[in-house]
């Protein structure tokens, strides 16, 4: 390719009126005008590549930013927060000199196009985010939503997604300690694949995405750059170059978990030897994002020679290199005298590494190609000063009608209803999925499926650091039906549930991450759902005293005018002071008292009962009671620390009936209980929040009751564990074998 065709800065000056295909890159006319204003000339095609990806919804949060600010503005004061929102991931102080970093991110659309690779690269991406904080990734979770279970396309998507997560996560050696699988017709064509990763680091080890110190070298390391995910960029490349080689540009990225594993070990050794000044993962916007963000947060300038980027496909043009989404790449800023040691470690791990530029104090990001300047921009304008929209929003036209409660007919047969719900795809055992994930690798998993929250012991994660008995617990939750009925309450209920799940293991909830999955922000009704959900989540975080440390927004989850149910997915991280005191899931022995903590009201709006038996979504979701959630968590955390509890399980979808069945199945121990109220149907199937089922040694019951009284948490002794049936006095008796068969056969029957 001759340099004559290269769109250099000089050429941009000389040809001010040349038209660039900004619209094809998703840029609006006014946004393009802004770029011209910033640069005082037309951008080069490479500069346009950078601005178009950095100002995309995905990277700039232009529609969501004005709302997300509430997470910081309303954030509760928390001594635990070491790094807040705005970095690759938040960092939380977990005590004894240790910090945890965690974040959840979506890979929804790619997982629909190519489920296996889409989900796999979703895991890969979030893991690199965690590494870029200087942490060792220690576990992953996945929160998944698909169309109706019986739909043929669900089979394609679910099998591929689970296979991709299994393949990538297992090969990385990260235990999978939890997640969700939900089916609802609204996700057909718009599956949600939200992946969470948690990492551990010493408090004094935090790395930030910054490039200070003129003269420091910029190193690109990991996989070589190929034409992955640059469908859009080829528009640019072919607009200025009449070249036939640009016909085949894949929109699908393929992951190489083996390379990522090497990259993890390589990064950890680099951190340990203190060889990086700043580090950034290469995610959606690749080299564009890494260079502009590193430069913007550092001294402000960087010079990069794009010819030095190692390529998998030698035909790539600079615009394409800038936009390539090739996986398993990282960028580090390294002091010149450390470069040889840096390169040695990369070589030891077989990780290719190349110096592609250096930090300057020019305040400009300057890139060259064939010796000519093709990019010369103030990096902050791309990284931080993207457009911000105040999108209009209003309550959906049908919202009022939707919130009118309907009196659903009650079932005649509660036993049959329990079994019907227990075998329904959303409540059935997820073993078909979870058995494809390695939950044991690295030997620090204290809790994984079927526990309400995953738990990791931290003392042995990294050698040579302060000894500790602590562990961290994590749960993710979301309920799109609740959020559809009331997005404000729905987001709060998602938080409440994740918070409760963490507390149910004995851990103290500390911090929050979230993935906000919505339809198009250009639809004012969707935007209203979004605004309400963010407001609800921010308010609830303040009341519960848990700050949002980070997260991700996924818009445009819709087909035509049909948006998915608004689906805020919330992840909560907690700490337990002594992992050995964790509460195990369900009924763990015979002869324990079965105790229900929390009150039950008649609440069926958005419930599984209404969904499975009547296919109705109407009314209002269960009432949010954050004060009660907080008191309940205090009881659980104290009771665990005092060793009062032998087992627990939170009440959520399907209510007490499903909680009892799952508690029995956890270890194969039956129970005999009497319902606390007067209405068996409500007692069994209502989905009131702020409730947990616990199992306690008879002699410890008094102490538990006292603790509950002190925290004003209602406490009902329901019966005892033992036997081989679930017995609800005067209502039903179901042998565990029948429960198990009903619970376990559904997904294997559908998915093979």
């Amino acid at each position, binding site marked *: 390719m001759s340099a004559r065709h290269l769109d250099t800065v000089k050429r941009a000056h000389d040809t001010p009126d040349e038209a660039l295909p900004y619209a094809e890159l998703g840029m609006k006319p006014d946004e393009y005008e802004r770029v011209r204003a910033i640069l005082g000339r037309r951008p080069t095609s490479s500069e346009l590549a950078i601005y178009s990806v950095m100002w995309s919804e995905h990277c700039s949060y232009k529609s969501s930013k004005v709302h997300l600010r509430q997470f910081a503005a309303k954030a509760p004061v928390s001594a635990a927060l070491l790094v807040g929102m705005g970095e690759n991931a938040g960092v939380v102080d977990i005590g004894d000199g240790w910090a945890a970093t965690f974040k959840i991110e979506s890979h929804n659309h790619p997982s629909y*196009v*190519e489920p296996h*690779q889409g989900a796999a690269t979703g895991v890969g991406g979030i893991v690199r985010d965690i590494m870029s904080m200087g942490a060792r990734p220690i576990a992953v979770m996945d929160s998944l939503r698909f169309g109706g279970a019986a739909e043929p396309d669900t089979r394609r998507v679910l099998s591929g997604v689970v296979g991709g997560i299994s393949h990538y996560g297992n090969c990385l050696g990260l235990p999978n300690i939890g997640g969700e699988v939900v089916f609802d017709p609204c996700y057909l064509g718009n599956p949600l694949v939200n992946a969470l990763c948690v990492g551990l680091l010493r408090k004094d080890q935090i790395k930030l995405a910054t490039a200070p110190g003129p003269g420091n070298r910029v190193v690109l390391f990991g*996989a070589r750059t*190929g*034409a*992955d995910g640059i469908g859009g960029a080829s528009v640019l490349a072919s607009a200025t170059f009449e070249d036939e080689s640009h016909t*085949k*540009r*894949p929109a*699908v*990225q*393929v*992951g*190489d978990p*083996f*390379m990522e594993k090497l990259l993890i070990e390589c990064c950890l050794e680099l951190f340990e030897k203190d060889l990086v000044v700043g580090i950034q993962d290469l995610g959606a916007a690749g080299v564009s994002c890494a260079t502009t963000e590193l430069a913007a947060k550092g001294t402000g300038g960087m010079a990069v020679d794009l010819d030095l980027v190692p390529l*998998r*496909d030698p035909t790539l043009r600079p615009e394409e290199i800038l936009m390539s989404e*090739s*996986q398993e790449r990282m960028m580090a800023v390294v002091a010149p005298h450390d470069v040889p040691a840096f390169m040695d470690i990369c070589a030891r791990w*077989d990780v290719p590494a190349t110096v592609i530029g250096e930090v300057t104090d020019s305040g400009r990001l300057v890139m060259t190609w064939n010796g000519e300047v093709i990019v010369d921009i103030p990096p902050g304008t791309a990284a931080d000063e993207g457009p911000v929209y105040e999108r209009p929003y209003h309550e959906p036209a049908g919202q009022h009608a939707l919130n009118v409660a309907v009196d659903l007919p009650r079932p005649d047969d509660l036993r049959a209803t329990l079994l019907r719900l227990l075998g329904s795809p959303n409540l059935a055992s997820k073993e078909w999925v979870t058995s494809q994930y390695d939950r044991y690798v690295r030997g620090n998993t204290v809790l994984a499926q079927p526990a309400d929250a995953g738990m990791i012991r931290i003392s042995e994660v990294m050698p040579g650091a302060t000894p500790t008995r602590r562990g961290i617990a994590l749960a993710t939750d979301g309920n799109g039906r609740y959020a559809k009925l009331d997005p404000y309450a729905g987001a709060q209920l998602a938080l409440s549930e994740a918070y409760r799940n963490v507390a149910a293991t004995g851990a103290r909830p500390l911090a929050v991450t979230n993935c906000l999955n919505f339809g198009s922000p250009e639809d004012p009704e969707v935007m209203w759902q979004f605004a309400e959900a963010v407001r609800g989540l921010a308010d609830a975080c303040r009341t519960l005293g848990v700050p949002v440390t980070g997260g991700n927004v996924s818009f445009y989850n819709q087909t035509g005018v049909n948006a998915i149910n608004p689906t805020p997915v919330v992840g909560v991280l907690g700490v337990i002071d002594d992992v050995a005191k964790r509460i195990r899931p369900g009924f763990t022995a015979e002869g324990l008292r079965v105790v229900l903590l929390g009150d039950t009201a008649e609440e069926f709006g958005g419930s599984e009962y209404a969904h499975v038996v009547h296919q109705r979504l109407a009314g209002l979701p269960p009432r949010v009671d954050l004060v009660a959630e907080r008191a309940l968590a205090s009881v659980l955390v104290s009771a665990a620390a005092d060793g009062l509890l032998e087992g627990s399980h939170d009440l959520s979808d399907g209510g007490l009936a499903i909680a009892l069945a799952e508690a029995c199945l956890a270890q194969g121990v039956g129970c005999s209980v009497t319902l606390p109220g007067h209405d068996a149907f409500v007692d069994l199937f209502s989905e009131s929040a702020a409730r947990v089922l616990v199992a306690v040694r008879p002699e410890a019951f008094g102490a538990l009751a006292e603790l509950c009284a002190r925290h004003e948490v209602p406490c009902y002794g329901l019966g005892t564990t033992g036997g081989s049936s679930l017995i609800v006095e005067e209502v039903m008796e179901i042998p565990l074998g029948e429960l198990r068969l009903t619970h376990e056969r559904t997904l294997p029957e559908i998915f093979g």
Partner: protein
Amino acid sequence: MARVIVDVMLKPEILDPQGQAIARALPRLGFSRVADVRQGKRFEIEIDGPADEAEITKMAETLLANTVIEDFTIRLEQ
């Protein structure tokens, strides 16, 4: 009875991590002149009666290959 071979390879522009891992391993085993390796799948299919090329193509498209990332070629061996 007809025999059909369907070869399925990743599209050339798609990353082939397996092929690359093999290519990197070969020099260590003393095979120094290998410039590139791509790994794909080969299906041997036995058909009752004559093979119908259109039918096999459909089979390859719908089941054997993932045409989002893979190409295939068909060979009939009557």
